[in-house]
């Protein structure tokens, strides 16, 4: 069974996302802040981390950086969850070591695709791998 660590401080979002993931057969671990997320990742060694970026205690950027600089955890794919598709956030996320990112509100089919792709890869893949073949842009919004 695929184990996903969801690091998210907002209770409602966390609850909603874990339910949706569980319904699709994932085992979901929960952490409420960055520090807790790092600890749990080290302890539990999940198959993937969904990392909210604005977190109390330690933000998602730093938590990711720590995970990726630790030989024990650097192989775990990290998908950043951002509140809004800000230009630069994607680059920043990839820069600190995130393997991909997903904008909120979560486009569930896209997220599932991303998870499937990252988890299917061998664990000790090269960090300097080329850009992802699939456009990770969120679905364009319709403006009023």
């Amino acid at each position: 069974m695929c184990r996903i660590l969801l690091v998210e401080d907002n209770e409602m979002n966390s609850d909603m996302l874990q339910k949706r993931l569980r319904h699709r057969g994932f085992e979901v671990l929960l952490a409420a802040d960055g520090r807790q997320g790092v600890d749990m990742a080290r302890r539990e060694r999940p198959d993937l981390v969904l990392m909210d970026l604005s977190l109390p205690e330690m933000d998602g950027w730093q938590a990711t950086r720590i995970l990726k600089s630790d030989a024990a955890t650097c192989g775990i794919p990290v998908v950043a969850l951002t509140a809004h598709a800000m230009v630069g956030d994607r680059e920043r996320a990839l820069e600190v070591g995130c393997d991909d990112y997903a904008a909120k509100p979560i486009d569930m089919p896209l997220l599932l695709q991303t998870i499937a792709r990252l988890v299917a890869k061998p664990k000790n893949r090269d960090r300097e791998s080329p850009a992802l073949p699939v456009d990770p842009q969120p679905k364009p919004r319709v403006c009023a």
Partner: protein
Amino acid sequence: MKGRFTGGRANLRRSLGLHAPRSVTARISGLSWTIALFSLMVFVAASVPEQKHEIEDNLRSKARGIAASLQEGLASAAVTEDYSGLVDQAVQALAGDDSIDFLAIAKNGGFSVIVERRGWHTAQLGDYWRPKQHTAAGGIEVVPLFGKREFHFATPYSYSSIPWGWIHVGLSLEAYDRGVARLYRRTGVLAVGCMAVSLLASVIVARRLVRPMLRLQAVVGRIAEGDLSARASIRSAQEIEGLAQSFNTMADSLWQRDEILESVRFAAQRFLSAAAWQTAIQEVISKIGSAAQVSRVFLLENRSGPHEGLVGTVLYEWLQPGIAWWTGGTGPAESCWTGGDWSQWARALGRGELVLVETGAPAAGTQRGLAPAARSSILVPIDVGGVWFGVLGFDDCVRARRWSDAERDSFRSAAGMLGAAITRQRAQEYVDNILRSMGEALLVMDPDLRIRRVNPSALRLLEYTEEQLIGQHVSQIIEGQVPVNSIAIERTYRTQSGNRIPVLFSSAELRSGPGSLEGYVCLAQDMTELKRIQGEVVRARDAAEEANRAKSRFLANMSHELRTPLNAIIGYSQMLQEDYIGPHQEEVHSDLEKIERSGHILLGIVNDILDLSKIEAGRERVELQNVDVAALLEDVYNAVEPLARQQGNVVRIDCPEPARLAYADLPKLRQSVLNLVNNACKFTENGQVSVAVRKLRSGSGEWTEVSVSDTGIGIGAEHLGKLFQPFSQVDGSATRKYNGTGLGLALSRKFCQMMGGDITVASEPGQGSRFAIRVPAGRAAPGTAGAGV
């Protein structure tokens, strides 16, 4: 010492007549004396030998007489061969006359009787006593037998026409020598006397001849030394007197020329030293007028038209006593000379040429004014900075005169200097006016940073008088270092009352040539008011920025706070749609979908607000790269397709191959195009929405234009202008009917402008609308992306 020595030597030389050129006196006296001496010598040379000859002749005739007296006795002796009587006769003759030294009778055969003072004897004498020439002859010679100088006379004696022998008479030369000596003595005394007299006479004559020349020479010497008033008064030979008169005439003209030159020099000096030429001009023209001995000098300021004549104002005038005023002596007077020669003269003056009137007749033409007619005039144009300012005129009302070159040149010089003075003064006034009218405070300093010049603004600013400031060190008024060659830096001036004034300060070195630093010029602008306004502006700006930051913060926070629960709303409704199985399943699903769609709309609004606020805060950036417009349009089509279908619209996309590349920020371009197409679909029912891409070339380069045309409700002209302003949907009812906040177009336009392009619109109500996005066309070499804005 040295000078005196050499002088002494020179005098010595002159007196000796060596080397130094001889004086005329010496030459004349020497010449006449030499002539006298020569005459005397000729006379002596002619008379002395003659007198000597005469004395000799006396001796010869005496000897001849003695010889003749002996002939009687000799006749008998020749017959008898008895010489005793002859000897007696001879002895007696000797005794009776001391001057007879000897008598000798020489027979042709050689036998001779010789009687002398010691006695008589016979002897056989040689050929000397029997000359070949058979004539009587006598002369002074040394006689061999006696070995002394004698007057020796020999006469042949013939008996009965047969040459028998010779009678020799020897006379002593004592008396002869005495006579000759006397002759020499007398002649010598006479010669010396004559020489003395002639020398005296020649010297006197020479002196008399040379004296007037010497006097003339003395006068010349005085003139040469600069005393031009010296004149020669000589009553002498006609030639010398003529020379003296010519000389006096020459000295007169020299004196006048010197006076004129002096007056011109005076003019130069006065014009240079006077602060204003007006203060010097009267003095100058009176000086020149008296020097040139003219009747009138005037300065006329020209106001002539090109063909009128000489018209203007006589500003200044100087007159010889007895000549009437033009100006009346009270001030400037209008003058007007027209017609006749005047037009021609005025043109010549305008060209910068002198006008000379030497005819002696008054000038033809009309003359208005008080002036008596001038008989000769010279009009000199005055040039001031290339413009004909006026005329410096010189009139002689008394006599016709020819103007000498010296006068012309001098008058021209004077006019030139006046022109230069006026030019300089005008330039000075020009600069002064500029300095006076400047609002900035100007300081001119010498190289030691002492103030040399200030303008009124500086005095006002610094609260000093000019006298207080001139000569002061600049540190008295400027705080801190005085930078040279600075432009618009901030400094602080200190006024007399101690106020500190912020100024915008510039300074520059003042150089008259390479390497010669004359000082510094400083310009300062009072910034007190500017500072105050600047302070207000800064405060206002800070406040505005703070307000804007607060707004941005508020918007960011608000959108975050709004989005978090929205995410939950959307997420839970999605989750329930995925998971709910139960009663009224269809209806529940439909309601959940409505909740989710409303959540998305609200989220879109929140995101738009956030985007706009980020752009306004300057935090939004674009990432430019080559974008495949065709692929982008496909995404757009997929996104609007449900809405288009719902509205009954047909969406047509036309993207030709050559136009498919744009150089843009992909997400922003996509969002902008999507917004336009979405709007088109929204405001059109059962119509057509056309998306066309084309390549344009205009002005600065190539563009990719994506136009979105619809057959919808259109927009009135009065609304087109506000279309791109935030929250400006055409009317309030539209918001309710068509959804949306009116942020989309404002955001799209901002995005396009950030990408270097723009959005334009053309529309008429009821006729549909055509929106066009224009962004730079794609670049030939891909990969040059990444430029931020």
